[in-house]
């Protein structure tokens, strides 16, 4: 094996593209996500060999094959568990885990919430297209009620999950949302997520052109951008709309969309986004905003620092090792009650 390079070389996008033919459907949102990722990684100053992409099953889960890094395409829903093992085995690695909405929130829901609860220092990308693509068009746990699919010919009667609610409910420390039609925002957020220490959850509103086309058009369509996208930035007021004339204010216990200049509202009434606030209440309220009454929040909604699972394990080991009275399995075998037959 070759020695580890001490100084990471300056990578380009090309260094992260694998030689495999990309096999998503033409027009799939995954292409732009892949491109944003290969744009983001060279910015991180991490040696290429230290990147690992892990995935479960689904269209999104093919992602690792297309990255020229270490990659492991595992089984349905279990990506977060595999990624947790990878990170604990070698905490130096930059571990990315790619999931679709079915993989993450249906079959893998348990692993998803527990990765967040433990706050293992990995990055989870949730490609949310509100449909099962690889199995050819069944409703998913994020499909809106009423969605007609192959398995819901009369419309889905179930209520959808909102990823953010699970993230907050599981005490997640990082939640960001982006859209597949905005490569610049995606790249920014991927870099931001990589730098966050703890489980970073990035929800990408992604379009399945075949089975659920325009599912996010209310937010992503050109004509809707101004009124239905709220780009949040830590420390900045929550403004949106043409010329940033609209904003979000807190009215009692609820968020309210207002227009500056109307009913005496000034910019001072607009909430300033604090992504670093430990209390997740406002983050949750922000993350739940959606059309038609509100714009959808995009950007880093929550980013707080808490001890990670890998840090806690390393600290614990250090402490136990310092106080240990035995230092090998041979010591252990001789410990406790032994006797000699002469």
């Amino acid at each position, binding site marked *: *094996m*070759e020695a*580890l*390079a001490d100084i990471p070389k300056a990578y380009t996008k090309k260094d992260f593209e*694998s030689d*495999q033919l990309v096999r998503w459907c033409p027009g799939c949102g995954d292409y732009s996500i892949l491109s944003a990722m290969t744009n983001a990684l060279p910015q991180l100053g991490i*040696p*290429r*060999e*230290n990147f690992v992409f*892990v*995935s479960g*099953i689904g269209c999104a889960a093919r992602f*690792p*094959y297309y*990255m020229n*890094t*270490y*990659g*492991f*395409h*595992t*089984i349905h829903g*279990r990506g977060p*568990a*595999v*990624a*947790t*093992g*990878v*990170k*604990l*085995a*070698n905490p*130096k*690695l930059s571990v990315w885990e790619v999931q679709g909405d079915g993989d993450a929130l249906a079959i893998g829901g*348990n*692993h998803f919430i*527990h990765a967040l609860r433990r706050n293992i220092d990995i990055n989870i990308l949730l490609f949310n297209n509100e449909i099962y693509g690889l199995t050819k068009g069944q409703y998913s746990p994020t499909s809106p009620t009423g969605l007609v699919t192959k398995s819901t010919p009369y419309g889905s009667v179930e209520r959808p999950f909102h990823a953010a609610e699970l993230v907050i409910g599981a005490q997640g420390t990082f939640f960001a949302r982006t859209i597949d039609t905005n490569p610049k925002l995606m790249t920014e957020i991927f870099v931001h997520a990589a730098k966050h220490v703890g489980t970073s959850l990035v929800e990408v509103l992604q379009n399945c052109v075949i089975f659920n086309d325009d599912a996010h058009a209310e937010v992503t369509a050109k004509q809707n951008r101004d009124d239905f996208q709220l780009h949040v930035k830590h420390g900045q007021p929550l403004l949106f709309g043409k010329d940033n004339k609209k904003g979000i204010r807190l009215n009692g216990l609820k968020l309210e969309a207002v227009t500056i200049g109307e009913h005496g509202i000034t910019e001072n009434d607009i909430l300033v986004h604090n992504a670093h606030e430990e209390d997740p209440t406002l983050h949750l309220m922000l993350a739940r905003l959606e059309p038609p009454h509100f714009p959808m929040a995009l950007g880093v909604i929550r980013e707080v620092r808490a001890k990670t699972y890998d840090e806690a*394990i390393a600290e*614990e*080991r250090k402490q*136990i*090792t310092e106080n*240990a009275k*035995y*230092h*090998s*399995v*041979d010591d*252990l*075998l*001789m410990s*406790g*009650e*032994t*006797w*000699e*037959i*002469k």
Partner: protein
Amino acid sequence: MSDPLVNGKKTTTELEKVVIRFAGDSGDGMQLTGSQFSFTSALWGNDLATFPDFPAEIRAPQGTVEGVSGFQVQIGKIDIYTPGDQADVLVAMNPAALKSNLQFARKGGNVIVDLDAFVDRNIEKAGFVTNPLEDGTLADYNVVEAPISSLTKTALEGLQLDNKSIMRSKNMFALGMMYWLFDRSLKETEKYIDSKFKKTPALAEGNKRALNAGFHYAETIEALPSMYKIPPASIEKGVYRHISGNTATAWGLMAAAERIGKKLFLGSYPITPASDILHELSRHKNLGVITMQAEDEIAAVCSAIGASYAGQLGVTTSSGPGIALKGEAIGLAVMAEIPLVVVDVQRGGPSTGLPTKTEQADINIAVFGRNSESPAVVLAASTPANCFEFAYMAAKIAMEHMTPVILLTDGYLANGSEPWKFPKTADMPPINLAEAKKSNGVYYPYERDAEKLARGWAVPGTPGFEHRIGGLEKQEKTGNVSYDPTNHEKMVRTRAEKVERVANYIPDLEVQGNGDGKLLVVGWGGTFGGLRTAVTELQHANKKVDFVHFNYINPLPKNTKAIFERYSKIVVCELNMGQFASLLRSKFPGMNILSYSKIQGQPFLVTELKEVFIEHLKD
């Protein structure tokens, strides 16, 4: 054994071996009492084997049959391989203990009861209609009615202890009686009590007083007219310790990781009777162990697979129901060809079955229990102590051959314990990793070692070896995704051949016997002790019976067929419906392979095995 207790004279009787069973409420401390007796006997030089028999419920209602916890130990001056069929001495701390354990006492043996516990309420709770001490239930036994509770109370008078603490010391009174009966020193148990109750001197004093009071009571009363002597066994020289199967499994895995300089990563979800491996490994994080109590069985195995992918030794431990959940992930390890150790501590099934009882019915799921052609190496430990060796071998094979290895133990091995002359880790066989290499400057993830067919293990963090693997079918050599029909067939056959070739690296079977026997007894896994004892006793009686015991289930040792061909009759004994027998019949069609099976959640009795073998020898 003769019955000196009934002859009314004070004598000392020397015995080759004796079986003692302690039974009481699960809060009565019977496991502790049994293990103290075992430890003292081991120091005295006896060989021994133990078997705890406890309920699934932590504390079932007091005084009920469901809440009874038992501990059986056989000690001897001869080699002891089992905890014994039937107890020569049964200690029953209450009517429920008597009700559920009398079946394990030998007729003509001794039954010691706490007389104080045989009050109407308890008798009724245990399901007796009349008092068993008076109605003839115990006519075939020598009964010692000892007022254990009240004498313990008297002995502890004056100590600042509440009634509950006093009553908890009565197990020490019973233990004291046993120490007198078997001529044992109280010293080791007193030392143990001092260290256990270091912070509560009153409890230490109370327990020691109860122990001594029991000893002196036994010495005094007329009902115990004799002491038994079990002289030390002629045991191989060396340093010994007690070890249970679960602890040995944990330590064997640690020894393998330490030997190869890797961390041991355990992903595990609590399940009876495997949890003690998780507990044990969780104590040794200073030795490079990482344990993760996962959110479920699937996360447990998947995190272990992730750890192995990242270059450490990934292990998951469970029992039957958990193994069923892990199946898909084990298949991933088969496809991705990465090392993985799966420990299955078998218990009674199906479904939740009998969580605390032993069974050997997971051989089919271990060998076949995954979708499609999904071969894995399967090993089985056969004594509590050799769980160490086979856990080590499981890890060695996994890392050398790049394959999942399933290690089968069972509830009987896991909780049973025996004295163990433990090795130095340097004496364990070396582990030679399947290292990743490049051909002409290129790394191909599925390029294989010509002998073992193992692919190289390239670990994230290593520059120049970046690669992608996964559960989709692989193109040979490159490891790229491939749907090519002939490639698929080739890869299926290669994976099977890789596992078959493990047979080139495992020891041959050894026959116990002259090889001229007419009957070959075959066993595997945790039934070794009973089978070995039964066959040995028959061989001493000049019966033509030989014995082989399997620790390697898949692949089988290479000389299996050659040995089987020498016998006109082969009887496979196992605690299931004949799963291993079926496997052997499919491998060796045309041979006369019979099955003797038992599915009662209990180990084989030596007596029943001897009867079966004698019957087979008749025709």
